[in-house]
């Protein structure tokens, strides 16, 4: 099987976000970059599927500025076989990214299963997975908690609201977007980190994958930090007095209960 896994490099969750001077982006100085946590689940799932099917390969794909190669090295250290980087500007939107990844995959001899995380934790738009599938003309199943591989496709356990889930079947080739709970991602061992440095990373330009700036459909502007909150009310007294006063305020002042 030819297995692909699409990943994004994002700021660590503990990052304090600062804006750049033009307020058209964030100040990336000093940011610690990580593989988006849901993408780690996608990598793990790709490696497990590869290892169950001898002769298979797992290739990691990422689109973005050159820094994203570092994230792909993490995936290679976890065990992916090779990597494809599509060099796009920092400001590329979901559509341009997805169309570029789809373009890179179309250049491959074939693809059977593509894994992604259910969303990236920076943009949080949850678009690229479905868009890659759309541009490849294949089915996608998102927010996947479990997989059962069948001869003609995959049966996925898909999380919906309120603790409910759906069992969805889709035929090969298909894209699966991973949700936490799908597996426990492995850590890269030191020898594998060393080995990863020698693995192949192919870099493609937008023109190589048939995309251009015209594929950018939205742009983020006028970035703002959340307004500082006014100091709230401290409710003191013994627990009984606190509970009584809180409910009075929620009922009479805030009018939310």
């Amino acid at each position: 099987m030819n297995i692909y896994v699409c990943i994004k490099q994002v700021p660590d969750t503990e990052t304090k976000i600062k804006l750049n001077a033009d307020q058209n982006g964030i100040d990336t100085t000093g940011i610690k970059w990580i593989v988006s946590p849901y993408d780690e689940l996608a990598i793990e799932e790709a490696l497990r599927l590869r290892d169950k099917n001898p002769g298979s390969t797992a290739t990691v794909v990422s689109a973005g500025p050159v820094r994203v190669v570092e994230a792909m090295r993490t995936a290679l250290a976890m065990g992916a076989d090779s990597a494809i980087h599509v060099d796009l500007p920092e400001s590329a939107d979901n559509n341009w990214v997805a169309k570029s990844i789809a373009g890179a995959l179309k250049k491959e001899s074939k693809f059977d299963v593509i894994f992604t995380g259910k969303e990236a934790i920076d943009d949080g738009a949850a678009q690229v997975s479905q868009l890659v599938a759309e541009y490849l003309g294949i089915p996608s199943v998102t927010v996947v908690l479990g997989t059962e591989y069948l001869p003609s496709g995959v049966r996925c356990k898909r999380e919906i609201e309120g603790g409910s889930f759906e069992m969805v079947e889709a035929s090969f080739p298909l894209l699966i977007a991973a949700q936490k709970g799908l597996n426990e991602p492995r850590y890269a061992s030191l020898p594998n980190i060393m080995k990863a440095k020698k693995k192949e990373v192919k870099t493609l330009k937008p023109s190589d994958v048939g995309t251009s700036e015209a594929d950018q459909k939205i742009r983020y502007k006028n970035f703002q930090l959340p307004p500082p909150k006014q100091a709230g009310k401290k409710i003191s007294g013994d627990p009984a007095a606190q509970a009584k006063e809180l409910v009075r305020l929620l009922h009479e002042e805030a009018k939310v209960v």
Partner: protein
Amino acid sequence: MSKVLVIAEQRDGRLKRSTFELVGASAAAGNETHVALLGEGVAGLAQELAHYGAKKVHLAENAGLKFYTSEAYSKILFPLIQSLSPSVILASHTPTGRDLMPRLAAKLGVGLASDCTQLTFEGDQIKVRRPVYAGKATVEVEFLGSGPRVATFRQNALGIPKPDTSKTAEISTTSVDLGTLATRVIEVVKGNSARPDVTEASIVISGGRSLKNAENFKILEDTADVIGAAVGASRAAVDAGFRPHRDQVGQTGKVVSPSLYIACGISGAIQHLAGMRTSKVIVAINTDPEAPIFQLADYGLVGDLFAIIPLLREELKKIKEH
């Protein structure tokens, strides 16, 4: 004024509250508001959409639409949008909307603004803002090129207007030919919880590691049930195994925007604050007066949650009984 199409969502014979938010926001701005309603045996829901301001409901019914798949929904919606040619298309950022709308936007050759929390109509255009970095910042989304403006909205972000049951809508039945499909839903397995989902609830009560174990969450559940609230949890509580990941509020869990968020024994790690910052009213209960959660709280209670919560439950009961 513009022609707006809202993609309705229903499950188990009920329309989602978030659909009413979108219909209400569109109608309140004086738009010609159309709604696409897809499913099996859902015709009876159409007039309820009128109560929130729908002018016309485009109804598609078929056994193949009983459960959502992007493939089946797209086969209905894409031709409907082409013939209706709305200037704005709105959907909710729910498990269905977030799965469907990117593919639909791509078919239309336009971009998508997802998970927006602010909406204003300007002529036949919309102005939207959305959180990024899970709410650590917000941005305005500029749509490039031409074509319909497509956006999904976070649940509870727009609010629900009062329904006017005297209003009615025109109903148009859309023909359905699904052909062969590459995806199908085999079954839906219901969660055992009678409580709402954290992303849908208008009140969320969350607990942190201070709850000490899974059993102690019962005091939050008992309180939640008095006011129809959902029970959420911090990452620390989820990592400790007290609650399932689906209840996790934060950057690596669910991002919520209820009218009331009660944080119990949650110190307020930056990634948790990101997930609940847009809540309208925030209450924090914590023994540590220096906990960062208090900087965001509208009402702060320094004290032992094990003492306060049961009393809070009794006080809430009194309010509810009146």
